[in-house]
């Protein structure tokens, strides 16, 4: 049987015989998707908390606010209401002064969006209750956009993160482990082709990472209705590229390390900037302009951007050639560099 196939099958066997590794590769991303998905799923709008200061007009104001079904109202003394505002237990304090029932005083924190919205909504209700007439006829159209929710934004980020972690840890750790055992040296003493060995390291990893990522796509579709707007073949090519890209980077990072500590340190040093800045959890646009060129150079940035183009904006292969080119170039260049730099003993 061909040496490449034998090397590949050995890697696959070794992976499957490591139950802990299998668990982490498949379970961890799913745990992430479920926990973050549940936390950030769009929920029915909750009632806003409002405090009404206790006095003879309090009951009347509280009733008007409560009837609107927008607010959950608590009647309390002013100092207590102020304390609750400070610790975020209420968004707004409404006070109708005892002496002047024809006025109303709002205390709120204008830097808190919820607070400001509550003030304006409460004001509308109290003004109408006091007899104000609106002059425009209003029609509200409530339109929830597919792909516009945070979870829709998040899933491509998590896929990118999975491709990065899977490739880097999988290839990097396995490589250094073989080096420590001096198995690399033993293989080097045979006529084995070095490119076969390194190719098998990368491809075996991809065989596990790609299904892992498709499981994320399926699960997020079933449970959180995250749709893929573009075509699946384009998505597949991007994911393939990402798997190659980060296996290559993992191999490069591990190409000279001789201990597991060194390789974990290097891996973290390489991955942490990408976790933060490449747009897994929030758009990289939030960073200041002068950082943008650096962020664009991180290998995870184009991967996640391209994933979002396909999943959220419905881009096809023709629309993402630049992104794909960057991704595959990363993979190929790092593989060739690793082949050159690789320390076999």
């Amino acid at each position, binding site marked *: *049987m061909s040496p490449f196939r*034998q090397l590949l099958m050995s890697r696959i*066997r*070794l992976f499957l015989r490591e139950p802990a590794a299998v668990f982490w590769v498949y379970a961890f991303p799913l745990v992430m998707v479920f926990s973050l998905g549940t936390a950030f799923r769009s929920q029915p709008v909750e009632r806003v908390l409002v405090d009404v200061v206790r006095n003879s007009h309090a009951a009347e104001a509280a009733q008007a606010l409560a009837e609107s079904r927008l607010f959950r109202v608590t009647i309390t003394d002013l100092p207590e209401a102020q304390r609750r505002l400070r610790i975020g237990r209420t968004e707004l304090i409404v006070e109708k002064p005892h002496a002047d029932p024809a006025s109303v005083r709002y205390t709120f924190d204008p830097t808190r969006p919820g607070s400001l919205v509550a003030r304006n909504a409460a004001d509308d209700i109290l003004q109408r209750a006091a007899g104000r007439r609106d002059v425009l006829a209003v029609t509200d159209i409530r339109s929830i956009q597919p792909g516009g929710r945070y979870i829709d934004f998040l899933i491509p980020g998590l896929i990118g993160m999975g491709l990065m972690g899977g490739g880097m840890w999988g290839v990097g750790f396995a490589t250094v482990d073989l080096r420590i055992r001096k198995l690399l040296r033993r293989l080097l003493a045979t*006529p084995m082709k070095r490119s076969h060995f390194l190719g098998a390291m990368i491809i075996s990893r991809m065989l596990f990472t790609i299904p892992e990522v498709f499981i994320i796509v399926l699960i997020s579709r079933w449970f959180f209705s995250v749709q893929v707007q573009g075509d699946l073949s384009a998505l597949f090519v991007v994911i393939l590229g990402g798997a190659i890209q980060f296996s290559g980077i993992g191999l490069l990072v591990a190409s000279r390390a001789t201990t597991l500590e060194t390789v974990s340190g290097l891996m973290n040093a390489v991955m942490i900037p990408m976790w933060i800045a490449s747009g897994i959890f929030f758009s990289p646009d939030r960073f200041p302009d002068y950082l943008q060129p650096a962020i664009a150079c991180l290998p995870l940035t184009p991967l996640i951007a391209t994933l979002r183009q396909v999943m959220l904006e419905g881009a096809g292969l023709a629309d993402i050639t630049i992104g794909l080119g960057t991704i595959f170039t990363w993979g190929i260049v790092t593989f060739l560099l690793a082949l050159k730099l690789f320390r076999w003993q």
Partner: protein
Amino acid sequence: MTAISVSGLRKTYPGRPPVEAVRGIDLTVRRGECFGVLGPNGAGKTTTIEILEGLLSPTAGRVEVFGMSWDTQADEIRQVIGISLQETRLAEKLSVLETVTLFRSFYRNGLEPHEAIRRVGLEDKTDAWIRDLSGGQKQRVAVATALIGRPQLLFLDEPTTGLDPASRRDLWGILTDFRSSGGTILLTTHYMDEAERLCDRVAIIDQGRILALDSPRQLIRALQADHVIELQVRPEGSDLSFLTDLESVEQVRDDGEAVCLSVAEPHIAIPRILEQLASRGLKLTGLTTRQASLEDVFVQLTGRHLNDRLPDRPPDSGG
């Protein structure tokens, strides 16, 4: 026909201070022979054999394997040699068959994996994971991976270190079979009985140099005194160096447990020794005689035992 020829081989590991592990070795291994490299820890055995295997590059010197050079024909050489390193931990969760099959795939032609496993006597462990084998069985898998490519030349670095006597004898049997089918072996060891038993010729090396190179029998015969008498006397620790003056006694050495005399003709020496001890009032509590071994050759050459620890700073012998 030569299998290996080496001349002027040197290896200095860079560092502070640099380590001169090999300081000028010349040797020739003939096709079909079993050649032993015998030496204590740190002598430079592994360094030498790994240069011959193409795993290390020499600082200076020329190495040819079947007339080919590592610089230009590495792949060709690798097709015809088989290797067992001093220390390899094969993948724990592959079975014996999977491991041997993997190695088989690297060679143009070779044994059928089951045949290699049979040769090292592991048929009943064919499907066991490497993790679940004993040390001796793992060593046999290592030898199976060395044999799998039908090599003409086997390199074995301390193949029997850590094995029990029965496993050592099994391995010796495997190597003897390999030789009788025309193979060449180069092995390192620090067991002199192994070298005496297996090797046609032995190079005794210490501190990176060859001290002697010949067949085990010739090396022993070259000792002027090829018998050893071990004495125990009371009071313990008495200085017996006066025995050197006796006829036929070549050397007296206190080993701690016994005093060892190198003797050419025991039947002449023993009566005189007894006489001398009695006349000095020393009481003899033990006496054994044996044929000299390679160990004694080594002791004579270096003044140390094979398994003694090296002095912390080896005396720089002019190199």
